[in-house]
C-alpha cells in the first residue's frame, strides 16, 4: 500500500450563522491513495461539498474549519499561508463544480479561463499555454477546439461547458481532482460521456479523483471506493462492491433501496427514507440517523456509534449494522421502513415503553 496522497483527519467545519452554529462537517477522516477514485455520497446538505471545499480552503465566511488536519504530501493544508495554499489550488489539487453554467465566468472567453489557470502557476511554460489550452479542449472531446476556444461560455452547451471545466481542472496536471457533482446539471447521455471522460483521464493521467455526488449510479460507474456521509459524518466506508452488495449501515442500505431500478417490479413503490436529515444546528443525541432508522435500538438514542471495521476494508458507524438487522430483525423481507418499524424501538413516551424494547429486538418483527 502506497502512502496516501491526501489524508483528512478529524475534520470539522462549522458555519457560524445568526441562527446558531451549523455543524456541517464533524470529525471526518479519510484518505485518498495516488490514482485512486473515491466517491463521496449522501443526501443534499450532508456535508460532502463542504468537506471538499475545506480541503482547498474555499469555505467562505461565516464557515470555518474548526478542527482537524488535512495532510497533502506531508504538509497540513490548514497550516499553510494563504499564498502557499493558493499555489496548491488548481496546481496540485484541482476542483470542478456542479453547475457548469454558473461556474464559468460569463464575460470571459472559455480559452482565456482555461489558460488563466496555467498562467497562475509555473507548472506549464507560458509559451506552451495556448497550445495546451487547445489540446486540453480536444482531450475532453470538444470538437473544433481551435475555434471554440475563442467562444464565450454562453455559446457552449451544458455538456461542453462541463468539459471545459474539466479541461480547466486538468490544465496543470493535478495529482488530485475533486469533482463536485460534475454530472448533476447534465442530461443522462451527456452524464455518461462525462463519466467516461473522467474514467479515461484517471487512467491516462493517473490523477486521483474524489467524486462527490448524491447519485449512486454515478459512483458505481466511476469509483473504486466509496464514503457514505450523513449529517456531516462518515457513516460507512468500503469498496464499491461492498457498499452496493453488503451495505452495513442502515442509511446506506436505505439509500440503495430508494434508487429506482429498471429490473424492479413496477408494482412496487420506491422506498423512501422517511423523515428529513437532522437540523445541523440542533443535532439529535446518539446516532444522528436514529430519528429515521428502522433498525434503531435503545443505545442509538444515547451513544454515538464510532466508525469500526465490519469487514476487510469496510467500516461502518452503527450499533446494529445490517448483518445483525438481517439476522435479528428480518431486514430482508420488511416492507415497512418507517422509523423504528423493524426494531420496534420508539423514543420514551411514545408507542412502546422502553422496558419492552429488548424483547422486541430479540424477535424479528415481521415474518
Amino acid at each position, binding site marked *: 500500500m502506497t502512502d496516501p496522497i491526501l489524508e483528512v483527519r478529524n475534520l470539522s467545519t462549522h458555519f457560524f450563522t445568526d441562527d446558531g452554529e451549523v455543524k456541517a462537517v464533524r470529525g471526518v477522516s479519510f484518505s485518498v491513495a495516488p490514482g485512486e477514485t473515491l466517491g463521496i455520497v449522501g443526501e443534499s446538505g450532508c456535508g460532502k461539498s463542504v468537506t471538499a471545499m475545506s480541503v482547498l480552503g474555499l469555505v467562505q465566511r461565516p464557515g470555518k474549519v474548526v478542527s482537524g488536519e488535512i495532510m497533502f504530501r506531508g504538509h497540513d493544508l490548514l497550516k499553510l499561508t494563504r499564498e502557499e495554499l*493558493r499555489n496548491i489550488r*488548481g*496546481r496540485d489539487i484541482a476542483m470542478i463544480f456542479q453547475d457548469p453554467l*454558473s461556474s464559468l*465566468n460569463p*464575460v470571459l472567453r472559455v480559452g482565456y479561463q482555461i489558460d*488563466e*489557470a496555467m498562467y*497562475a502557476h509555473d507548472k506549464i511554460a507560458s509559451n506552451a499555454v495556448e497550445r495546451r489550452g487547445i489540446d486540453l479542449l480536444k482531450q475532453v472531446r470538444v470538437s473544433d477546439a481551435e475555434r471554440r476556444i475563442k467562444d464565450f461560455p454562453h455559446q457552449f452547451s451544458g455538456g461542453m461547458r462541463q468539459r471545459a471545466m474539466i479541461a480547466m481542472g486538468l490544465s496543470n496536471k493535478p495529482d488530485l481532482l475533486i469533482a463536485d457533482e460534475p454530472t448533476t446539471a447534465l442530461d443522462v447521455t451527456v452524464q455518461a460521456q462525462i463519466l467516461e471522460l473522467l474514467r479515461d483521464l484517471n487512467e491516462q493521467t493517473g490523477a486521483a479523483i474524489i467524486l462527490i455526488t448524491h447519485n449512486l449510479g454515478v459512483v458505481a460507474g466511476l469509483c473504486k471506493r466509496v464514503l457514505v456521509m450523513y449529517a456531516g459524518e462518515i457513516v460507512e466506508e468500503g469498496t464499491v462492491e461492498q457498499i452496493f452488495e453488503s451495505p452495513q449501515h442502515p442509511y446506506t442500505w436505505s439509500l440503495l433501496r430508494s434508487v429506482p431500478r429498471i429490473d424492479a417490479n413496477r408494482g412496487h413503490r420506491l422506498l423512501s427514507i422517511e423523515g428529513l436529515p437532522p437540523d445541523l444546528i440542533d443535532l439529535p443525541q446518539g446516532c444522528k440517523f436514529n430519528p429515521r432508522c428502522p433498525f434503531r435500538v435503545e443505545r442509538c438514542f444515547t451513544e454515538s456509534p464510532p466508525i469500526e471495521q465490519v469487514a476487510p476494508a469496510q467500516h461502518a458507524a452503527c450499533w446494529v449494522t445490517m448483518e445483525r438487522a438481517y439476522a435479528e430483525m428480518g431486514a430482508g423481507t420488511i416492507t415497512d421502513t418507517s422509523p423504528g418499524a423493524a426494531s420496534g424501538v420508539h423514543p420514551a413516551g411514545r408507542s412502546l415503553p422502553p422496558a419492552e424494547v429488548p424483547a422486541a429486538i430479540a424477535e424479528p418483527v415481521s415474518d
Partner: protein
Amino acid sequence: MPTRGTLIYIAQRLLLIVFTLLAVSFLVFITVHSLPGSAFESERVHGKALQLVLHQYGLDRPILVQYWSFLTSAIQGNLGVSFQIRGLPITPLVMRELSVSAELGGTALLITIGIGTTFGVLAAMRQNTWVDYTLTSIAVVGYSVPSFVLAGLGELIFAYWLPTVTNGAIQYPANWTGTYGTLVELSLPAIILGFYTSGQVTRITRAAMLEVLQQDYIRTARAKGLKTRVVTVRHALRNALIPVISILGPLVISIITGSVIIENIFGIPGLGKEFVESILGADYNVTVAVFTVYALLIGIANLIVDLLYTVVDPRIRY
C-alpha cells in the same frame, strides 16, 4: 470589431437622435417665444423703433416661419445671432462654452467612475468593517447633500477663508475657454459636481460586487489558484460593472443638470451659465441653441452607454 448588426444599430440610434433634436428644438422654440417679455424690453425702445428692431431680427414673422428659418440655417451650422449682445453669432459662443462645460463634466465623470468604483470595490471587499462604513458614509453624504450646498461650502472655504491656498483660482474670466491651468481651476467644482454621482456609483458597485462575489464562477476562479487581486478585478469587477453601466446614462444627465447649478455658483462661463442667462434675458436663439446642444449630448451619451454594454458583457449583442 463592430459587426454589421452593431453598425445598423448605431445608424438607427443616430437617426433617433436627429428626430429627438428636431422635437426638442421645436418645442423649446415655441415655448420660449411664447414667454412674456422680450429681449428688447429693457432697452426702452417703443413704437416704430421697436418694430424696426423686431424686423431686423426677423421676429415679426409668423412663428413657424421663424422656426423654419432657424432650422435651415442650424443645419448649416449657423445657430443665429444673440439679441443681448446684438448680432453676436451664437455658434462660436456655444462651442466655446461647450468646451468649458465638457471639461468640467468630463472631469466630474472621470471622478465619478474612478472614485465610485474604487470605493465600491473596497467597501465590498471589507464588508461590515470600518472601511466599509467610512466609504459608504461618504457615499451617502455624496448623494444626499445637494450640490448647491456643497458648492456654497466650497466657495466659503476655498475662496473666502483660504484664498491663498487656491491662489485666487476660483475666478473665471467671462471669455474663459478652460484652456489654461485647467485642472487646478476646475478641480473644486468638478469634485463637487462628481460627488453626488460618485456616491451613486459607490452604492451600485458595492452592491453589485457583493452579489458577484457570491457567484459560482468566483469560487471557480479561487479554486484555480488565482491571486485575490486577479479574482477581484478580472472576475468580479468586470461583472459588477454591468449594473454600474446601466446607471451611467442617468448619471450623465445628473452631471449635465448639476453643471447648470455649479457653473452659476462658481461663475464658470460654460453652457450651464449661458443657459440661465439666456432665459433671464429672453435671448431666444441662445436658449434654443443651448437646449439643442444638451439634447444632443444626452442622446450621444446614452448611445455610448448602450455600446459600452456590449464591450463589458459579451452576451449582449445588437
